């Protein structure tokens, strides 16, 4: 009999092993089985979760079609025509809106322009008809537009929301009809390190809107009809009051150059008056032709998707690059000038001083995709440039910020390894709470004590796409807390907020750099670190004759490769004195005399179109900067408004409006207001917010608790057995 046999074996076992085997059999085994069982149960839950994931992936619901149709009812394409002569580009930008739906429409299109652009002309085109726009005070322009819209007249309004973000509205587009808005703006060409460049943004990286929106805003009802809603995805908040104007919708899917959602056509004419060695466009394929010293550039395929900045770079044949130039324009009876001067390089680099470098890297959601890869690579590259005597730290920020070291640490091999590891693990997610991170990076007091004194140079390298809506507040923080630090911005991504990059660097007394392509990272970071070592020219002054008004009024320190650029109003007569420029280059005093007004100067070009607009734009920009220095809005407005009206320039206080005389929409037809979406910046992952955590630990608590109870019961049962025995 098997049972009998088993008993015999057991009896033998007990004899042989005594109490040990008994204990193993009755104490240990049940506990092990129980533990294994509960592990199985826990594991099964996870397995089930996996299985259900596999089930759902095939059947994801797509809801976009309905709304996709709605947003695509209005198609937009942009045609850009750029004329570059000398240091100035005159750009004509034409937006064509075509109504593909069956209703009368109003199109609302938020679009980017270069932050230095001076918009000076608006024209609306309906078929063969041209309606020239007027410059008006902003509220007045809105009023004119609203009335025309209500009266069924074709009308167009272009407003400046940020120096690099504008809104274009066109009312009463008939079904099947096309209406064009044509803008003209003037822009300085960048000149850096012997290379010219021009950047043309085409789309807007979704900006993070900090602050809270008052719940009641939603319910304001008819009062809000008095302003023109921006149709953006964000609501106004206490910190970004115009959030709905600066957050245009994006097409749900990324675009491509073959069948663009927002098509870009482009033509650039380069008339530099000097031979060029290279014309290069890093992000687009271009076709180049040359006739009589004038270079003409078009897109190789005719059109491109508006999902990344267009950049054109050109380099003169070495030796023919200008070292000084003066451009003059006569506007409304007065002469305006633009001075370009490249200071000589120092004879030898000064001995390297110990420095502290703080890297601040944006790891917010908008950096998702290629941007965070570019940021990681830039940081890794930058770490290679650190010298053993340098101190450094890395601060990353999204919804909150986190520093690698508690305080800046020496660049030892161990620390660099730690940093390398930290950088490799940077992930993009969450909001863009930039202000606390900036404050943390600029606060130097924590670093200085008797053991680690404040180093001579303190540099903050800020790597971000600048996708924030509260730029002005950030500038104020920089001005207030900069102290001895210097701020260098590195713009990342296909469509960085260039205004933020440039202004933050200006207020931070550093430089700005762009990296839009992973392939550029090495060269760009190397160049930045060459610049970082020291400002090449400081305390520069130009002795202008009396009555001349230069902007910027104080010349900033120049870093390696940066030229001196000043726009001036010369007055009704051209001065006949020479210009004396003085300053420190490297470690010695330097001065030069420029003889522009003697008529003998070869680069002197009479009546250079656009110079006056550049001057007015520089002055407006400088006046707007005063806000960060504590002037209130009224003070700034009182000075900017007359200037903008006089020069017919767009500004935060002036807008262009064009109205057709004849109404075209019948009274009986309603008007449908439609946003025109931008294309998602190339390589950017969709902007998202995280799902909430929606499970409590209660279930697990109950399980674990019951299991422990069971164990306790077992223990008690055995104890009783023991006592019995």
């Amino acid at each position: 009999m098997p049972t009998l046999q088993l008993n015999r074996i057991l009896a033998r076992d007990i004899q042989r092993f005594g109490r040990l085997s008994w204990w193993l059999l009755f104490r240990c085994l049940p506990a092990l089985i129980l533990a294994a069982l509960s592990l199985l149960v826990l594991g099964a839950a996870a397995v089930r979760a996996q299985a259900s994931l596999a089930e759902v992936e095939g059947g994801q619901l797509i809801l976009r079609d309905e709304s996709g149709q709605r947003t695509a009812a209005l198609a937009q394409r942009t045609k850009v025509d750029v004329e570059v002569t000398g240091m100035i580009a005159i750009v004509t930008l034409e937006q064509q809106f075509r109504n593909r739906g069956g209703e009368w429409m109003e199109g609302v299109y938020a679009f980017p322009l270069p932050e230095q652009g001076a918009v000076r002309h608006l024209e609306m085109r309906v078929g063969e008809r041209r309606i020239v726009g007027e410059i008006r005070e902003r509220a007045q322009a809105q009023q004119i537009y609203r009335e025309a819209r209500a009266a069924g007249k074709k009308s167009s309004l272009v407003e400046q929301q940020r120096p690099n973000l504008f809104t274009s509205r066109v009312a009463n587009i008939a079904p099947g009809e096309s209406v064009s808005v044509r803008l003209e703006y003037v822009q300085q060409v960048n000149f850096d390190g012997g290379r010219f460049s021009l950047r043309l943004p085409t789309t807007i990286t979704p900006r993070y809107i900090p602050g809270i929106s008052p719940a009641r805003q939603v319910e304001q009802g008819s009062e809000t009809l008095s302003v023109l809603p921006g149709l953006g995805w964000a609501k106004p908040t206490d910190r970004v009051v115009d959030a709905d104007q600066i957050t245009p919708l994006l097409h749900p899917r990324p675009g491509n150059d073959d069948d663009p959602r927002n098509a870009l056509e482009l033509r650039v004419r380069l008339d530099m008056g000097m031979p060029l060695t290279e014309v290069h466009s890093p992000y687009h394929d271009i076709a180049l032709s040359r006739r009589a010293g004038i270079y003409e550039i078009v897109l190789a395929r005719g059109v491109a998707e508006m999902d990344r900045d267009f950049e054109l770079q050109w380099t003169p044949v070495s030796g023919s690059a200008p070292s000084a130039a003066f451009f003059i324009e006569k506007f409304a009876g007065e002469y305006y000038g633009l001075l370009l001067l490249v200071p000589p390089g120092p004879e030898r680099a000064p001995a390297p001083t110990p420095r502290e470098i703080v890297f601040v890297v944006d790891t917010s959601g908008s950096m998702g995709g290629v941007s965070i890869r570019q940021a990681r690579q830039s940081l890794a590259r930058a770490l290679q440039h650190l010298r053993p005597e340098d101190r450094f730290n890395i601060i990353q920020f999204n919804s909150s910020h986190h520093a690698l070291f508690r305080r800046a640490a020496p660049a030892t091999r161990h620390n660099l390894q730690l940093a390398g590891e930290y950088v490799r693990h940077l992930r993009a997610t969450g909001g863009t709470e930039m202000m606390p991170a900036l404050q943390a990076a600029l606060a130097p007091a924590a670093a200085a004590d008797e053991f680690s004194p404040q180093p001579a140079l303190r540099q903050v390298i800020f790597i971000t796409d600048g996708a924030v809506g509260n730029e002005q507040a950030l500038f104020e923080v920089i001005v207030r807390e900069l102290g001895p630090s210097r701020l260098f911005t590195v713009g990342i991504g296909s469509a960085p907020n260039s205004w933020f990059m440039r202004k933050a660097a200006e207020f931070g007394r550093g430089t700005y750099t762009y990296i839009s392509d992973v392939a550029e990272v090495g060269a760009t970071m190397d160049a930045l670190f060459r610049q970082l070592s020291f400002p090449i020219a400081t305390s520069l002054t130009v002795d202008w004759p009396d009555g001349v008004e230069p902007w910027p009024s104080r010349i900033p320190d120049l870093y390696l490769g940066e030229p001196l650029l000043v726009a001036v109003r010369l007055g009704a007569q051209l001065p006949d004195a020479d210009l004396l420029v003085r300053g420190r280059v490297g470690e010695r005093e330097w001065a030069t005399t420029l003889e522009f007004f003697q008529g003998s100067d070869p680069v002197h070009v009479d009546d250079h179109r656009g110079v006056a607009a550049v001057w007015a734009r520089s002055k407006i920009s400088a006046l707007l900067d005063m806000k960060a220095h504590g002037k209130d809005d009224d003070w700034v407005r009182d000075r900017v408004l007359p200037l903008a009206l006089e020069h017919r320039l767009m500004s935060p206080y002036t807008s262009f409006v064009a109205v057709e005389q004849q109404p075209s929409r019948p009274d009986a037809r309603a008007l449908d207001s439609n946003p025109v979406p931008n294309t998602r910046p190339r390589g950017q992952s969709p902007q998202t917010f995280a799902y909430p955590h929606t499970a409590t630990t209660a279930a697990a608590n109950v399980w674990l608790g019951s299991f422990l109870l069971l164990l306790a019961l077992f223990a008690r049962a055995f104890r009783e057995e023991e006592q019995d025995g």
Partner: protein
Amino acid sequence: MVSPLSRISALLLLLAASHQLGTALLIQLKAQLAPRLVERAWAQSLAQDGRPVKPWPWADTWPMARLEIPALAESQLVLAGDTGNVLAFGPGHQRASAMPGTRGVAVIGGHRDTHFRFLRHIVPGQRIVVQLASGRAIHYRVVATDIVDASKGGIAIDSGDNLLLLVTCYPFDALSSDGPLRYRVIATPEPRQEAFAPSASAGAGRFML
């Protein structure tokens, strides 16, 4: 003779067990009791023309809407915010998402084992009514439910859809509380509503001129 070791271990086991069970009980108690206080705050909020009223003085949230599913006879108050300390007391509205009734995606999350346990019973076609503190009611129709992997991406904020998303964890009776799966109920506004406009009642709506 009972060894002191086994006595102590049995006691420890009992203690640990009661801690676990107590935690679970507390979670459920909070979830059950808080809505009573929230109801009172909501009534005051309605009476005061939509001004946020905190349910208890140290609360960091307030009721902002009532969520009703008539077919399931469910009625719950939605709190502002969807952090853990809000969701313990009731379903929460993700602050970064749109307000119900404005353009965009409004996201309301809730715990799968307390307030949003009923989500498993929702089927497409059912009606959801969201009443805001101002008294305005927005009617939605459930168009679908689905399951997504939250670790593979969040909710698109800028797609231009007008949606209400009710989100809870999935599977409903899983033990682990930090799984990546989310169960979503997707509802679109009822078409008969004319006032589905961005941030205010102008904008994407029609101008009847």
